[in-house]
């Protein structure tokens, strides 16, 4: 993402340089919407293509393999499978835009309804995860950079690399065995204990928010108790990435001349680091945090499976195992769209906040 910025931004300013700022902004907005649109079409094309390469014949799945040829042909026509691929793709896009993702075999409900039901659970976990990742990862990265080459720096570097090397499902399993089964510090699988299930009426679908609305602090505490471990596991991966990026951004700043000037002037090291060097990296960090947040939505697939978390990841895994393609493609589309959306939003934020990219 960061690469995109540096390559496209100068070209745009050059082209729009002579025009008024208002028109320039309009052009960059248009350009942004076009890339966004193309990316979404690309996502649809990929899911459409995946739906086509399924070796299971969708017509046979409906009529059964003993149906006479005439019936087969009629159903095939009804499903629109005799039309050219381009026409099929257009009607597929139409279906998706109107929210028709088909029916999930495993639940018997429209996929879109299922997704609306399970998505908040994932959102809740990923949000807490990214909060933990930022709160711990950023200070770790700053510390590592300010003590470059020390054992502390090496240690943080290894933690950062562990974020690329530990399988999420393994971390979740071990975490469950240690913190839930052995130490009993946290709640087990699921969002709340079984006897609290379904007590709070879902309004937002976020159980923490819903229990506050209902004023039920017991359930709130129980939900936090259950959320903390999966969110920490997930947060570890964003922590690793954020710490690594923070360290490299900080090293960049600390080698700048203005930092030397500040040090020569006798500014205390703590202020040099936090007030001088840290401030300029807040903007690129936003992009990193955005990317990492989007990555957590993806990472939740494995974590949710381990923690029986009723989110989109769990839904997707169940659908995968049942070869329930409507549900698989629907989940892929939603996760992909959110992923693209968060990426683009952090891109836009970066451009708005960084005076050089404006």
């Amino acid at each position, binding site marked *: 993402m960061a690469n995109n910025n540096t390559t496209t931004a100068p070209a745009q300013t050059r082209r729009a340089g002579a025009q008024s700022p208002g028109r320039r902004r309009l052009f960059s907005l248009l350009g942004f919407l076009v890339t966004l649109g193309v990316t979404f079409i690309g996502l649809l094309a990929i899911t459409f293509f*995946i739906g086509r390469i399924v070796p299971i014949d969708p017509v046979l799945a409906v009529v059964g393999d003993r149906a006479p040829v005439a019936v087969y042909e009629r159903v095939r026509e009804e499903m629109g499978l005799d039309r050219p691929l381009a026409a099929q793709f257009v009607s597929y896009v139409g279906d998706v835009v109107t929210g028709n993702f088909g029916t999930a075999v495993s639940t018997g409900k429209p996929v879109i309804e299922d997704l609306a039901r399970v998505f908040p659970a994932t959102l809740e976990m990923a949000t807490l995860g990214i909060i933990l990742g930022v709160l711990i990862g950023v200070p770790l990265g700053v510390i590592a950079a300010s003590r470059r080459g020390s054992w502390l720096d090496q240690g943080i570097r290894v933690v950062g690399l562990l974020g690329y090397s530990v399988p999420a499902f393994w971390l979740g*399993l071990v975490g469950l065995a240690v913190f839930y089964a052995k130490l009993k510090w946290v709640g087990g699988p699921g969002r709340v204990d079984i006897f609290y299930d379904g007590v709070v009426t879902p309004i937002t679908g976020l159980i923490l928010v819903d229990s506050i609305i209902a004023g039920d602090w017991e359930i709130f505490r129980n939900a936090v108790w259950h959320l903390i471990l999966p969110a920490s596991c997930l947060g570890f991966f964003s922590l690793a990435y954020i710490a690594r990026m923070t360290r490299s951004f900080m090293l960049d700043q600390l080698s700048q001349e203005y930092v030397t000037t500040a040090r020569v002037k006798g500014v205390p090291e703590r202020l040099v680091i936090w007030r001088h060097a840290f401030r300029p990296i807040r903007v690129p960090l936003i992009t990193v945090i955005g990317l990492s947040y989007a990555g957590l939505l993806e990472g939740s697939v494995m974590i949710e499976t381990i923690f029986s978390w009723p989110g989109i990841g769990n839904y997707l895994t169940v659908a995968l195992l049942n070869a329930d393609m409507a549900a698989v493609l629907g*989940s892929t589309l939603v996760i*992909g769209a959110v992923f693209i959306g968060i990426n683009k939003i952090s891109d836009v934020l970066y451009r708005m906040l960084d005076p050089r990219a404006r």
Partner: protein
Amino acid sequence: MTTLRDWLIDDSPASPMQARLGRFYRIFGALMHNPLAVVGAIIILVLVLTALFAPWIATHDPLRQALGERLLPPSAAHWMGTDELGRDIWSRVVYGARITLAIVTLVAVLAAPAGLVIGVAAGYFGGWVDRILMGITDIFLSLPKLILALAFVAALGPGIENAIIAIAITSWPGYARVARAETLTFKNSEFISAVRLLGASSLRVNLGHVLPLCTSSMIVRVTLDMAGIILTAAGLGFIGLGAQPPLPEWGAMISRGRSFILDQWWVATMPGFAIILVSLGFCFLGDGLRDVLDPKSGEQR
């Protein structure tokens, strides 16, 4: 010894062979000064040796079931204990090295050249070719890799071959980006113009002169990606879409051990340590290689 070293670091090598060997020697020397890279290289070496000599390193047959010896804790006879069918976990982890090595090698062999060709073509020809190829690349890059791989495997059907294909499909775009960026930096340099003036076709220019120059950054990128490939493959195995039983694939082994995690922790944890060790090895080596081969790219990842 000193004469060989002098010959290797000679500033004016007499033959391309000497220059090439000298370059390898320098890279090797620089790597040796990076302790993490050395550790990484040793881990990868151990992985390769384990995969090659699995029958001699394993203490048991990885597939032989001994129901009388189910779920035994780690001991002198079974270094990592046994699983729910009485199979020796150490031997299964050792044979699993073969599967992991095969997966990463095949993905690299499939995805890296594909990305290289697409990236070099986009960078070299520019214009519409560039716009279309990079448009497709960017779409793939902006999608979540794991989800895409999962969807592809779901469509192709479970199995280790399909897992490899799916991971390769999601890995090439990163290589295309790197190759394009490299190509753009060489494209207008004098030696390329010289080759063109000599009448070389664009195929010859690219194959003979541009592609080789992209290799070092490709090697760095592939090494850094290895950990991600291993994790994705293990994840597919864990969900049940990758390697199928009774193959001793590490992810699938963790999945089997999931039900016993509370009482027989070793069944699920041991293969996990193998995954972490090998992935860390690739990360260490990749980091070190990047510092040596591609110092300008810094920590960006």
